[in-house]
């Protein structure tokens, strides 16, 4: 009995994969991603609440997925770009709305999508807007020349299967063609991870980990100047 039960468990995914490939029945990929800190800092490296972009990409790029252009609204408020991390499909458009009464000068040094746009300051409550078309896949880092803390990362992907989750939060892609897919896990604080996965019907949730090298908080608040002085005693 025990053997029977275990055999079923082991073979069930295999059978399901065979069925997706063969039959092309809607399949799905689900699971959750947890950050695993892999940085050099040793203190204050708890669970990050940074967003994790989970996307399903076709394997080898052979399969062209039909993309439906979307417009992403990105606000700049309090000198911060929100959301600071988002995924988009190639061809999407990002509309930047300056909600602050100050100028912002956004730019990107990405080789694929270089741009620079100046957002007039908002004086009447109506946000000044600018748009950016994402024509090439890749990662676009957006900065403000005026405000160092203004940063946003836009991952332009060739897939419509995109979800933003947080660490431990489940993701679920449905209506996938059964078969092999490439699961892409990306986060601003972690190296992007591509995991080949099979979309099957009612698959068990994946337990995935994403190595984050971002984290840590300083322990002390020792003043710099006293510290310097102590070096010259």
């Amino acid at each position: 009995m025990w053997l029977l039960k275990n055999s079923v468990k082991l073979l069930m995914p295999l059978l399901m994969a065979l069925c997706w490939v063969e039959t092309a029945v809607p399949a799905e990929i689900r699971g959750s991603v947890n950050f695993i800190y892999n940085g050099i800092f040793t203190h204050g490296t708890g669970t990050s609440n940074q967003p994790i972009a989970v996307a399903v990409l076709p394997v080898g790029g052979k399969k062209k997925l039909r993309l439906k252009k979307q417009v992403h609204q990105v606000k700049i408020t309090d000198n911060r770009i929100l959301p600071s991390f988002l995924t988009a499909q190639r061809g999407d458009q990002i509309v930047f709305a300056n909600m602050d009464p100050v100028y912002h000068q956004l730019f990107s040094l990405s080789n694929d999508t270089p741009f620079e746009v100046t957002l007039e300051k908002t004086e009447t409550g109506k946000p000044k807007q600018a748009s950016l078309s994402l024509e090439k896949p890749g990662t676009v880092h957006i900065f403000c020349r005026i405000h160092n803390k203004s940063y946003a990362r836009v991952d332009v992907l060739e897939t419509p299967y995109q979800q933003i989750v947080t660490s431990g939060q489940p993701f679920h892609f449905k209506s996938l063609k059964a078969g092999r897919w490439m699961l892409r896990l990306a986060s601003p604080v972690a190296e992007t991870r591509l995991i080949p996965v099979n979309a099957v019907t009612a698959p068990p949730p994946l337990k995935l980990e994403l190595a984050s090298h971002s984290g840590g908080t300083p322990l002390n608040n020792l003043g710099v100047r006293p510290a310097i002085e102590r070096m010259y005693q």
Partner: protein
Amino acid sequence: MNIEQKNTLFVVSLVLIVLVSISTVATLLIMEHVRKSMDTDLNRAREVFVEAQKNRFDNLITVARGVRAEPSLIAATLTGDITTVRGMLDDLFPRPGADFIAVYLGTGPGGVAGAGDRPHFSSPQILNSKLLLTMVDRLINGESLVVGNALIYDAMLQIVVVPIENPLGGQVGALLVGRQFNQTDLTAMRHLVQSDIAIFNNSTVLATSIKKLVPDLVGLNNQTITKTAMEFSVDSVQYSGRVFPILSQVSSSHQAAKVLIAAPHNLYWAPYRLLGKNAMYFSAIILLVAALFGISISRRSLTRPLKILAKAARAIASGDLGQRVNIGNRDDELGQLTDSFNTMLSALNDSHAALEKSRQRFMDFADSSSDWLWETDNKGRFTYVSSSVSSTLGVPAKDFIGRTPREVFADSRLGELMGLLRPADGVLKTFMDIEIWLQAPETGRHCLRMNGVPIVSHDKAPRGYRGTARDITKVKQDEKRMVLLANQDHLTGIANRRRFLQDLGHEINRLEVCEQTGVLILVDLDHLKLVNDTAGHAAGDQIIVQVAGLLKKACREEDLLARISGDEFAMAFPNMSEQYGIEKAQQLLESINALKPRLDGKAINISASAGVVTMPKHGNQPVDLMAKADAAMSSAKKSGRNKVILFDESDMSRERMDNQLTWKNRLIEALENDHLVLVYQPILAIASNEISHYEVLVRMRGDKGTYLPPDKFIPTAEQFGLIQRVDRVVLSKAIKSLASLPVEQSKISYSINLSGLSVGDPDMYRYIEDEITKNNIDPRRITFEITETAACEQLNSAIEFIEKIRRLGCKISLDDFGVGFSSFSYLKHLRADIIKIDGSFIRDIHNNNADQLFVKALVDVAQGMGMATVAEFVENQQILELVTSLGVEYAQGYHIGRPNDKLILKRNANTVEPKEASLAAV
């Protein structure tokens, strides 16, 4: 060196000492100040240096944070791909403010990428060196920022390590930014800290502002890092410096390097050297000013006044006493000195004037004095002789100088004097009243009475003598003459009664010894009083002189002849028989009879009576023999005069002797029964025409109320030694009389006669003193009259007695002056207050020009010697007027008033009756 120079030197020295002291103190203070300044500056420089390092680190941190904020860095780092990061760094570097940038994504190989301006900065050895990894590890382990220093080869780097933050949260790597501390930085720092700086490690100098700072920093390396400065020298420049470490990291003992902060002494001493140089110039000016000031002050306040004083002193020393110093109105010590100098000068002038006056007085005395002054050296040579010597000895004073007395008076025997002036034993002794006879070349023989006192120097060495000399030749002659006069009758030149009695005593003794016989003849001129009364005393005197000459011729050489009273002569003929004596007497009377002197052209007959005694047959006592001869002579007169009577013991002698003894007894009885009474004869003060002085005369109360005159009993008193008792009675009565006078007559004074025997008697003097004291009488109211003869007969004792009486307060009057020795020189010795001119010069003065001349001369002399004169026997107004015209001050005589037992207060007017006696005019 004069005072001015000394004072200037003193002032300059004082100022120099002050300056040196100030300089020393200032130097010490400056040295301390410099040391403290250097310490302070070094500490401040170190603080500035540290502060600068803070700023550099601040800048570096800013750079690091800037780099960290670089989007490319963030983007590259977020990729987590070290290769991407290295590529990014290649694009990012060089970066202003950073010489070295490294990004650590991991601490192992391959986890780091770096870029720097030196190739080895980005080498794996450096990037993975323990030094840098330690700092990165500290960041990794929780520090928000790490700073440190690193010595990478020869480059001193300041390192800042900051985390590379994910804009979306967290830290994604470590950014290390380094900045090299190079020579340029140090030079800039040099200006900031204003001290020399050197960064070195062991023997390597990484950067320095001190040129030629040798690598061999043994001294510095071995220098214990302390907070005190140490000194060292580089290229002959002295430094004070401090060394402190540059630690690699906070809380690490590892030293990345050392810092030397040094201050060159020159920098600190330069202003002080300049100050010292200026101070030296200033000091020189001060010294110059002080010298000039000292000279000015000295010259103004000291030297000039002193020069004036010195000039005045020299002028004074040269005899110019008319100087007066004026240095202005000053109240300081010199002003006081000048005042004192002028005061002293005034006193000196006064003293000099007094000295000159005294010298002139001395010279006048010396020149005018009959005495002359002399002085000799220790060889007996005259060094000074007063000029009066020339008038005395006829030798000019200059001829004495440098010569001894023996040389001056070569013909004199001056052995005694020379022995005194040059004693053999060399000991000079005072000599008094030595008498020297010498033979003067011009004026003959002189007798000098010399006094001398030794002159000794301060060291008691004998220097000679000085003293006085008096020519007493005249005195000697006077003495000789006085002796002669004392024994001679002044009218006739033959012996007087005193001498006769003296010689007679000797002759009697000789006759007794030789058993020989002699004859005494007493001759009395008959009726001579008649001649005097009719022809005048001069005529009587002329007769006496002629008789004396006659008798003289009749004497042998061995015979004695004397005038024993007015008209009596005594003659003693030794070796003569009685019979021959009678014959001799008879011859004498006949010779007198034959004399027949002529008066007014008419010859007058004179006769004499003679008494003869034989000696020693009739006695061996001169007085007895004289009394017997007198008895015989009286017998001759009684028997008709012009006779010679030989003394007959059986009759006349007894009568005569009894007569004398009777008077003696009567006198004694009078003394014992107080029968001697006083009468007072007034003496007129001619100028005031007042009578306040009286001569006290004595009378003996006789039988039946009669009063006997003194010539009746005084000779007996003198003969029998009772005269002194009479003197005492008279004295006592007179003083009591004087004391009894009323107060309003307290100015009345008496003249009291003293006999010759009382003069010089010490007992008499004490009696006088006692009576005056006992009766409390002012001694000035008593004048003692002493006869000139009595005084001169015993001159020395009389002088002494007179002096004592004068000291007692009484006055002395020389009575009967002019009939005695008649020498004015006695006035000098006797020191009388009054001279009573003998009546023989007054009685007939209005008829006798010679008497007038004598009285005039006597008055002049007496007035010249401060003596008053009294004229006796003023018996009429004519005489009074004459003596008044001659200058006589007092007059006495019947014209003024007769002797009376009452005091006649006015001429021939009122009388006052003394209590002790009441006697009618006598």
